[in-house]
Each structure stands twice: as C-alpha cells, then as structure tokens.
C-alpha cells in the first residue's frame, strides 16, 4: 500500500542445523541496510517459519541451510506458503547448496540462491532492486 514503508524480512533456519553464523551475518547486514529483520533462531520447522512469516506480515523470507536437506525443507516452506495464500512473499535461500539443485529450488519459487562466497553487495542489491518496486 505504501511503497516507502520499512520493509520486513524474516531470516530463518530450518531443519536440524545449528550453524547460524551465516544467518546472523545476514541478519546484521540487513539491519544495517535499514530493514526490519525478524530472526527465527535455529532448528525451526517449515510450519514455524511460515506461521511467523504470515503473522509478522513480512515482505521477504530468507532461509539458511547447511544440512543438505534443502530440497525437502524448502519445498515444504514454499508449499505451506501457497496453502496460506501467502505466495506474494519473496523467497530466497542461502547456504551450502550444490549448483545442480539450484534450478529445482528456483522452480519452487526461490528467487535467489546464494552459495558460500556470494558477496554481500550482491545480496543487498538483489533485495533493494526487488523491494524498491513497491508492493
């Protein structure tokens, strides 16, 4: 409704994976870039992530996975979001995700998949570009 309002982003960790340095790094970077960032904490279920995203009415969900279970867990998040009629929320993922899985994740609705070594500037400008378009 108001294109200039502060955008809200949920950064989440799904599944049995306690490696949260990357997620916290992104949380801090997004906060410093002027976003309101909600962090889920580690080892969350897709259900918890989607419920949080809907209740917090976020514009974007970014999910970090280093467990290897990305195909299953991310598919479940995308599915639940559709069930909640919240398909308008922009999805992206990051973590140790093999290149060969990326097309599949993109087909599920993940707009970007950032793998280790992705420069922060690339992540921030992708979000900026996307969110600037307005709601």
């Amino acid at each position, binding site marked *: 409704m108001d294109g200039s309002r502060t955008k809200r982003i949920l950064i989440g960790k799904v599944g049995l994976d306690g490696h949260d340095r990357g997620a916290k790094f992104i949380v801090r970077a997004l906060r410093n870039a002027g976003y309101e960032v909600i962090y889920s904490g580690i080892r969350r279920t897709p259900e918890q992530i989607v419920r949080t995203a809907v*209740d917090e*009415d976020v514009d974007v969900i970014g999910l970090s996975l280093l467990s290897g279970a990305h195909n299953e867990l991310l598919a479940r998040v995308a599915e639940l979001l559709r069930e909640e009629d919240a398909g308008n929320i922009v999805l992206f993922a990051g973590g140790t995700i093999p290149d060969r899985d990326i097309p599949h994740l993109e087909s599920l609705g993940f707009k970007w998949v950032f793998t280790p070594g992705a420069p922060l500037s690339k992540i921030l400008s992708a979000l900026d570009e996307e969110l600037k378009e307005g709601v």
Partner: protein
Amino acid sequence: MDELVDQIRRGDRRSLARAMTLVDGVGPDVTELKDRLRQSTGDVPWWGFTGPPGVGKSTLIDALVTLLRRSAHRTGIIAIDPTSPVSGGALLGDRVRMMRHAVDRDVFIRSLATRGREGGLSDAAVHCARLLELASYDPVLIETVGVGQNEVDVASVADVCVVVLGPGYGDDIQLIKAGLLEVADVVVVNKCDLPEAGRLLKEVHSAFAGIVGVAEASRLPDPHTPDSAGSDAEGDESVSASVRRVEVLGVEAKSGRGVEELLDTLMEADRVAREPARRQSLHDRRVLGEIRRSAMKRFEESLDRVLSNPTYRAHVDRLLHGECSLDMMAGRFAADAATELYRESPDAGDVPGEDSA
C-alpha cells in the same frame, strides 16, 4: 474498512497481520482505522513487561504463555525492539525465545520496531494491541524494548505493569534512582538460580519498604533460599484499598520455577483491572495519554516551524542583549505556535458533539 474489521473479528489471521502493518504505517485510511479500533476495544486488560536488556523478558513471557495456554487463554503478544538510529533498520529478536508457540493458532506474536520513538514503546503498539483485542486475544501482553531507568511509557498504556529485573542490574542506589520501579504493579526478579539474585530480591524488597503506603509481599520460589523479611505486610488492614500494592516475586523463567505464582499474581491484578470503575479509569488514562501525545506532537511541530522562521533572529538578539527574559520569550513563542496551529485548522476548536455532552 468494515470488511477488514469483520474479518479480524472472525479470526482471520492474514487480515489481522495486514491490519498491523497498516497501523504501523501512515495515511488517512490508517487514522480512520485507528479511531475505529479505539471505539471497538478497551475491555481487555493489557499486561506490560518492561526492564533492562537481557533480564529475560521474552523468556518470561514465553513461560507465562505456556501456562496461559494450559488454561486455554488465547494470548496475544506485542514485542518491541529498538530501531537503529543510524540505519533505521532493526533486529526483532524477541520472537526467538517464543518459537515454541509459533504454530499455536491461539497465540499471536507480533514484533515491532520503535521507529525512533523513545520511552520503550513503538507508536503502533497500542493499535496492534487493540487489533489483538478485536481478534479476541485475552490477555494481551506487551513487551517493551530493553529500558534503562526512566523509559516508562508502558505504564501509560498497560493496565498491569510488570518490571523485570535480573542480577547484575546494580546496587540498591540504582534501584532507588530508577523511575522504572515506581510504575510497577509487580516486580519480578528473574534468574533466581544465580547466586546474586537473592541479594537483589532483598534490595528490591527494601526499596519498596521505604515507600510509605506501599504494601509488599516477597516470595522466593526456592524453599532452600533463606526467606526474606516482609511477609507480615500481607494482612496490613491499615493500607487502604486505593493504595497501589506492589508484589515482588523471584522466578527462574528458563526452568519455569516461580512462574505459576507469578501468573496467579497477574491473574489477580487482571481481575482487579476488570472491575468496571477501575476498567474505565484505566481506559480513560490510556486514551488521554494518546490525546496528549498527539497534541504535543502537533504543538512541537508548530513550535519548530515558528522557531525556524528567520524573523525570529531579532528576538534572539533581544534576549541575548537583556531586553527581555527567557520566560517572556518562551511564552511568546509558545503562544505563536498555538496561534499557528489554530490558523491552520480554525475548526479545531469545534469538536463535533462537544455541546451535547
């Protein structure tokens, strides 16, 4: 807007979440929605939780919600974290402590950023709390940002005010200085598993013992911890009903120890806050606070405009040359600011329906 309000009443979560985004923004529609919400709510007591950063406010709320759910209370929570004054961004992290309630349909948690407001709340907090009330959440819990000594905004909106402290806060001098304790209905000392907590509990206790007319009761959840003095205040008949009673409790939010006793205390305070006369005065105070805040904001904006007018340069010189006093000059500027406001909206003096009162 009627449709939105109806959908929220019927329990539609997305509508509730979206309405919260609306009231966290600006615009003419939003003002109308806020007015509508104010008219439609006010019956449910709000519980405010405040205290320094890191004392365990979110963890305590998480533990309370677990118990509230056991007795089937639909619980709504507003959790506020600070906006960065540099970037305008915020990390809303209170929710991390409450994730076990994330999939419970009868719990609704919303995180808000202060967006530059000082005092511990965000401007949207009251409106979001009203939205929760409209959606039949009862009680409504509001967690402030981590506050220091005098950020007591929550006291003007919450009907039951809980101040949470933890060991490491400082000595009793800090406690006496802090205005924070003056607004408390309940003071909770969290982290009672830590050795210094017993000392803090005693100090909080004696801080209240020093205030005439305030009765207090102190309880430790651990039977092994030596009992502190003051339980004789319990049956003090000389304390009139109008005197604010401050309860002091020790808890360990993480393990849940003492939280049941705290909930009993809060339920009792909640019951009192529902008594019709009390309900009305609490609600009046909240709405008056909103009117005051909004009026002050307009006045300050007008005053800033007046002060930025270049012709006032001459007045500053008069003041500096001793031709008038600061009081006179300030009075003049204040009057000008008020006149400006009146000129902008001459009908402002005629509030509809005022004559019929």
